[in-house]
């Protein structure tokens, strides 16, 4: 994408002003004729954490797959201002024959980084997600939450500017889920990445995001967008405040309307 026009009035590089990810009138029709997405406009800028909520099968994941390049949109324009993208799957997708350290090192290894650098990166990322002491554990020895931590750590080794999350906590129990939400939120305010987060939990979306977008059923359209007013870093206890409940109520209402 073009970044040649100088902007003298802004004192930082032009790329800062551009959204990291932009969808413009994107539609997706699968070979079988199923229309998964239609007329989607969406931007994720630096410092933004955008959640897309919608029921299962509404095309939310297709949005991420297009953003990551796993699928190509049928029509429309997708612009990316970074190639430092991390994709976090719903499953932890750890390789069962590698221990935690080996798994966290994997992506840097596939990118051809040297063993010393990637080990250092991996240790740093493992510390970041609180998995120190489990470096030598195999995935089968970890709980679901710990596997997801390892998966997150693996993504961090690539210094991502943009995180794509495909319902990463969907398979976890309520308590583990809440704890990982807290930590993801903490990482977001400390690590300065942008995020596009797919979920079907409205409370999760509101708690984590700076913006929540509601998606309709097939074909998926973005029907309403909510700016979440709570400043970062957020106290986990805001989840129990009346303001939070009110926002969750508004989003839930919009979601219900989109699917009635």
């Amino acid at each position: 994408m073009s970044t040649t026009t100088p902007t003298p009035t802004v004192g930082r590089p032009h790329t800062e002003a551009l959204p990291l990810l932009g969808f413009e009138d994107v539609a997706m029709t699968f070979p079988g004729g199923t229309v998964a997405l239609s007329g989607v406009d969406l931007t994720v800028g630096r410092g933004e954490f955008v959640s897309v909520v919608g029921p299962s099968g509404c095309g939310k994941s297709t949005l991420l797959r297009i953003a990551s390049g796993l699928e190509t949109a049928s029509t429309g324009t997708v612009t990316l201002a970074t190639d430092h993208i991390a994709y976090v799957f719903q499953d932890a997708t750890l390789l069962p024959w590698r221990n935690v350290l080996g798994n966290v090192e994997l992506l840097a290894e596939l990118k051809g980084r040297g063993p010393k650098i990637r080990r250092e990166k991996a240790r740093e990322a493992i510390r970041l997600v609180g998995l120190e002491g489990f470096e030598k554990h195999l995935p089968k020895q970890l709980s679901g939450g710990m596997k997801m931590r390892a998966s997150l750590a693996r993504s961090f080794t690539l210094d991502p500017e943009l995180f794509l999350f495909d319902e990463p906590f969907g398979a976890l129990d309520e308590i583990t889920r809440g704890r990982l939400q807290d930590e993801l939120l903490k990482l977001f305010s400390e690590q300065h990445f942008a995020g596009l987060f797919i979920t079907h939990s409205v409370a999760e979306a509101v708690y984590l995001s700076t913006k929540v977008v509601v998606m309709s059923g097939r074909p998926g359209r973005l029907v309403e967008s909510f700016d979440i007013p709570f400043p970062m870093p957020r106290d986990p206890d805001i989840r129990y405040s009346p303001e939070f409940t009110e926002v969750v109520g508004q989003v839930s209402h919009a979601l219900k309307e989109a699917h009635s």
Partner: protein
Amino acid sequence: MAATTIEGVTAEARAVTPVAPRRRKRSTISWLGPVVVFFLMVGLWYALAYYYAQRGLPYFVPYPHQVVEAMFSEGEFQVLMTALLHSTEVAMTGLAIAIVIGVTWAVLMAQATWIERSLFPYAVVLQCIPILALVPLIGILFGYNFQARVIVTVLIALFPLVAMTLFGLQSVAKQQRELFQLQGVSRATMLVKLQFPAALPSIFVGLRTSAGLAVVGAVVGDQFFQRGNPGLGVLIQLYANRLQGPDLYAAIIVASLLGVTVFVVFGQLGKLAVGRWYDFS
């Protein structure tokens, strides 16, 4: 009254430590069962041997102790061990070749659906043709010695390796494949770092089956090809022709032990290689 007390105590003990007694019971059964069956079979064997001895045909079914005597008698033990060595040589050479061909074949098929569609039917054909029907032809083409024996062994042992390796390579979860795709890796990297390690458990299951079949191949090949270093199959044929009952049974038992040993060894090898992260049971 006494019975009630005992029952009560047992029930209580069971309630307190429900795991320990059951586990002990299972492990006792696990070795006791086969041992009992073994002695039953030996008993049956004695009965049969007695029956044939009465009919004046002792070489049909000799007594077990006669077979053991024959096996460990002076010259015979040497002969059996030499034949065992030669058969093992044929079986392991054939198995090694089957591994190379089988894994290569499967890796090729895993590259593209059209390659799989083109090549898989021939793996099935290989499995379906009675190899014994080919054996005389193999003798004519390749001579009646080591080479021909190895070829028969390869043909018999190949299919499980092809099928299980292919199954393993294709068993990789879609998301794991996509994780690699997102890093823009080459086919070769995907194969070496993802598909092949993921396929190892299946490959070892195939290998264990193929190893057993390789022993069958070596013994069968022997019975048709008498030249070169004679293996167990040659001995079995020879003893059968000469009605040397005890020697025949001894040779059959050695051949069976080779099959069992190979099966166990390759099973353990698999556990050693991937048991750390994969549960075979």
